[in-house]
Structures are given as C-alpha cells and as structure tokens.
C-alpha cells in the first residue's frame, strides 16, 4: 500500500521572458508525485530546470522574469497555483518549506539565529514568544547543534557552512511541514560535513515522515538518499525510475551517459566515457528529441519529432523512441 499522496505536479510549464526576444521554456510539461515519507531525487546538470521546478512549486518566481504558464501543483489536494500570495505565505513554512544551497546567504545577516527562528515560528503558529523561543532552542538541538543556546545568540557570519545549513534545516522544520524541498543542500559543503547533513535529513524523513524533494547534480547523493529518481534534461523529464533500476538498468541514453561519466570511488579506472558536446541553449533548442545532437543512437526520426514520456510499467518512464520501440517488441 503506497503512502498517502503529498505533492502532485501535473504538466508544469514555466517560461522566462527575454524581453523582445520572446521567451524560453525552462520547465516543460513536468509531472511527478511525492508521497509521504518518501525522498524523491531530481537530478540533472546545470540549466536543466531542476531549480526552476522547485521555485515554481513554491511560487517563488514573483520577482523574476519567470512565469508559470501551464499545469497544476497540488499539495495535499490543494492547487498551489491558484493560491493568492497571502495564502502561499501561510503554506510556505507550514506545509512545505525549502532549503537552499547557500545557507549563509539565505539567512538574514543582521539578525541573531534564534530571532530568525522565533520569527518564523510566531508567523506560523499561535505559540507565545516564550514558547517560540523554547521551540527554537529545541529545533536547534534536534538538528545536532552542540550548544544551541550559544549558536542561537550568534549571527550567521559567525557560523561555519555546515552549521548554517543546520540552522536552515532547523528553521525549515520548525513548523512541521509535510514536504521539504532541498535544492542542492550539500553542494557547498565539504564531504565530511555533507555526510553529517545527509544523515540529518534521513533522520527527519524517518522520524517525522516528511516527504523530501532532493534536488542535486550529485548521483552519489541520489544513490544514497532517494527511493525514486527523476532525471531532467533541457527542461524536460527524460526518465523516472526507482533508484535501483535507474542505476543498474538506465534506459534513456542521457541517463546512461550521465551514470557512466561519474567517477566511482575505489573503481580504479583511469578514463571515463563522456557525453560529447554540451547542453543546448534554451533559446536555441533543436526540434525533436532535445538530446539527439549528443546521442550516439540518434536516428533521423529522433531529430524530427520529440518523443513523449512513455510509461513502461514498474514505476518507470522514459522519453526515448528507441527505448519505447524496444519495450514494445519485448512485449
């Protein structure tokens, strides 16, 4: 029995206006679901649209040239794209919260850590100031900060990178959101600190049963943390699969190339297969399959028509005509 559905993103489309030059589509027809207590990985290289997907879900594109031009985002049955800014402000933090790569720059440099936490708690709960202060200290302790009272009195610049990411997580979790969106939460951290933060996120998922959307470019982090994975390329989902299948039997040529090009610790290899070329510019997208120019299996029809994201059973989806043909003959 699958867990209760938490987030349901349907055919999300986000465009960025480029003034007179028209607009580019950063997120194109993206659909996925997250269930309670699940960690879903969203991977892809820079510019593939993974962060814009997160910002779209949170309705955080207001002061950017970006605009959601299609689709629906249901959080526990409620369409977030129809909510007013005021409603969204309540939902953010209370139902869904987000942590970013640069924890340091996401914290207010002129406020003490505890004051920032208390502010968030007071905004979203009917706790009194004293209760909120106690809760803030409790949250800091829960994320493994050794001396919560002292850290609470500090300003963000007095904290290390790992410590400020812990503070961010404490703040994000302070109102018990059901969904946590983590956008490259450990990318700026050293590996030993990354291990600590990943450990903490797993603890949150296990104990509080929070659903987590983990956005990362690091396939090692995905393999370790996620149960299901979505791979994005050029604004589209190209493959979705349970984590084991994705790593052992990747289907889409891009996923295959991506997994092969990651150096694996202890493997002893001295050269790696790489994907030729680079990601196409969003304003100069090729017709047909967006990966075709870099794909060594590409045929003429790949360059003509964009393949749909086809369901292949067993929780797998893949956007490649060649894979779809092969699956059809197998059946």
């Amino acid at each position: 029995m699958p867990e209760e559905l938490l987030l349901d993103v349907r055919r999300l489309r986000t465009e960025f206006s480029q003034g007179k030059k028209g607009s580019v589509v950063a997120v194109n027809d993206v659909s996925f679901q997250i269930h309670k207590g699940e960690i879903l990985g969203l991977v892809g290289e820079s510019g593939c649209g993974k962060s814009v997907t997160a910002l779209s879900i949170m309705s955080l594109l207001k002061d950017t040239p970006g605009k959601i031009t299609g689709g629906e985002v249901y959080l526990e049955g409620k369409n977030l794209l129809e909510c007013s800014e005021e409603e969204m402000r309540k939902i953010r933090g209370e139902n869904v919260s987000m942590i970013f790569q640069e924890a340091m720059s996401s914290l207010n440099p002129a406020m003490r850590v505890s004051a920032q936490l208390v502010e968030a708690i007071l905004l979203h709960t009917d706790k009194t100031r004293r209760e909120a202060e106690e809760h803030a200290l409790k949250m800091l302790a829960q994320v493994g900060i050794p001396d919560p009272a002292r850290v609470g009195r500090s300003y963000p610049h007095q904290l290390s990178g790992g410590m400020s990411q812990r503070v961010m997580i404490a703040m994000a979790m302070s109102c018990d959101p059901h969904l946590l969106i983590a956008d490259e939460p450990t990318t700026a951290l050293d590996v030993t600190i990354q291990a600590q933060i990943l450990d903490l996120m797993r603890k949150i998922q296990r104990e509080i049963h929070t659903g987590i959307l983990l956005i990362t470019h690091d396939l090692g982090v995905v393999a370790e943390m996620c149960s299901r994975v979505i791979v994005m390329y050029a604004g589209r989902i190209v493959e979705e699969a349970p984590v084991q299948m994705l790593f052992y039997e990747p289907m889409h040529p891009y996923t295959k190339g991506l997994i092969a090009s990651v150096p694996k610790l202890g493997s002893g290899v001295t050269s790696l297969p790489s994907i030729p070329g680079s990601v196409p510019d969003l304003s100069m997208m090729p017709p047909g399959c967006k990966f075709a120019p870099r794909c060594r299996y590409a045929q003429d029809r790949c360059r003509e028509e964009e393949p749909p994201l086809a369901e292949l059973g067993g929780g797998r989806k893949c956007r490649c005509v060649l894979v779809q043909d092969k699956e059809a003959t197998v059946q």
Partner: protein
Amino acid sequence: MSPLVQVKNVTKTFSAGKKLLGKKSVVHAVNRISFDMVQGETFSIVGESGCGKSTTARLVNHLLTPDSGEIWFDGKQISAMNENQMRPLRADMQMIFQDPNGSLNPRMRVEDLVAEPLLVHTGLSADERLRQARELLEIVGLSAKHARRYPHEFSGGQRQRIGIARALTVRPKLIIADEPVSSLDVSIQAQVLNLMQRLQAEFQLTYLFISHDLSVVEMISDRIAVMYLGCIAEIAPKAELYRNPRHPYTQALLSAVPVPDPAVKRERVLLQGDIPSAVHLPEGCLFHARCPLCTDICRRQVPEPQDLGGGHVVACHHI
C-alpha cells in the same frame, strides 16, 4: 632520477589582523609540509576547504613565498628567488584555474588569449604565435574556426579547454591545476579529465592536481597527499591510499564520499564537529578533536610522519 619538484619542510602563515594590545593573530595555512614530485607523474593534493591545498599550489608556483622551508623546481631553489629571477622559469610551470570565467580576459579573442604566453616567453613572430595558438585549440578539441571568438561565446567546458590550451603554449614541464573540473557538470568533467590525461602522454607533462573530490583524484593521480588543517596527514600511491588508508582522517574522508551505487550501504565514519580554526591551532595532533581513535598522546604531541614503506607516509600516533 631527481625529482622535478621538492617541497621541504615548508610553512606559510598569513596575518589575520591585529588583536588588542598589538598581539598579532596569524592563520597557519601550511605547516611544515614536505613532498617530492617526479617527472611525468600526477601528484594530487586532496582535502576539505581551508586545508591549505591551494596555498600549497601557490607556494610551488612562487605566487607565494614560504615563511620557512625550501622549494626546489627542476634543480633550482625557487623559494629564495625574486620575481625577476623567477620569470624565465615560469614558462616551465603553468597553471589551470578552477573558474575559467574569471581567468580568461573577456575582452580578448580566444586566439590572442592562447597566444599571449608566447608573447611573454618567446621571441616568435605574431603570425607564428597565432599559428601555434590555432594548432593548440585543435589539440584541446576546439576548432580553429572558433579562434576569433570571445570567451563568453563558449560553454564552461570549452572555456576550461581554452585555459588548458593557454597553459600548454609554452610547453611547460609542470602544470598546476587547482580544482580544474570542480565547476563543471559531470558529463563535461569527464571530457576535461580525459583530455588532461591525453595531453599528459602527448606532452610529457607533470601535474600537480588540487581537488576536494576524491573520486576525481582517484581517476587522474599516481600519488596522493591528504591534507588537513595545513598538514599532510598521509601520502601514498593511489591504489594503496584507496585500498589501505591508514590515517583516521583519510578513512573518514573516503567513507564520507557518497557512492553512485544504491546497493552499497557503507559503514560510515561520521566525524563530529567542524574543522578547527587555523588561527588557533589545537595542541598535539591537529585532528585529535574529531578523531575516533584519539588518546592522551594525541592531545599532547604532534605526530611525526612515519614511512610505512612503498612510499606510504602517515602522520598518526596510532599506526
């Protein structure tokens, strides 16, 4: 064969501003490190931010001079040289930087960028310089047709190729690469690493490779030094270091790297706390506060590097 680079007991500190009563506080960036590099090898330094790996690269490159200790390059002691004496040697040691955006002049055409070192170091004619620059662009996998473009017209991976071509023009013996693939996506990272390996064979290069990424380092290196808080914790040939890490910090570092294989569930040595400040260095072994094996002696006495044979050197009391 005599080593190409020798670093002997080098220490470097930076001033961190004055404190009350005029007492100076200093950052101990590099503390008494020693290592050799032989011709044709790739020697890597790994470690987390602030461990002194970039400072070490800059010391070898003579962009910084050591407070004490000696640095020898190609049989000459460069640590005592001034900038004028150093200049002719610079053609033999070139650098590749992490951020190809910041290290290429945005207002110069690619061919001029790549030809510039030849202008500084050789007496070649302008035509000859451009001819060689175009040839190198082809060698690093760019087209000579792109020679008249500006850096912003290239992707990150291509810009890193330009940086590599620029470093190669003067046919250096040593290339110091400071995090050359850290800002690149994995599919591009593999392209650049493969290119660096091909060029090493083609031009008989020696690499000093600085990185925080243990998987990348494993792929490209012959020997590896692990640094922590300005000291070298362990030096070993690649296979030995990954198969048989002896320093508890190396062990923790290796176990912390997420492996892209969902079936691998590893016993992780989870380190407590953060790296201590390099201003107030801990007494004794610099790693003792986070070390799972820490005992009394570690808090009192600095461990001396011990040679375990086969080029495996470890600085730890518990070996």
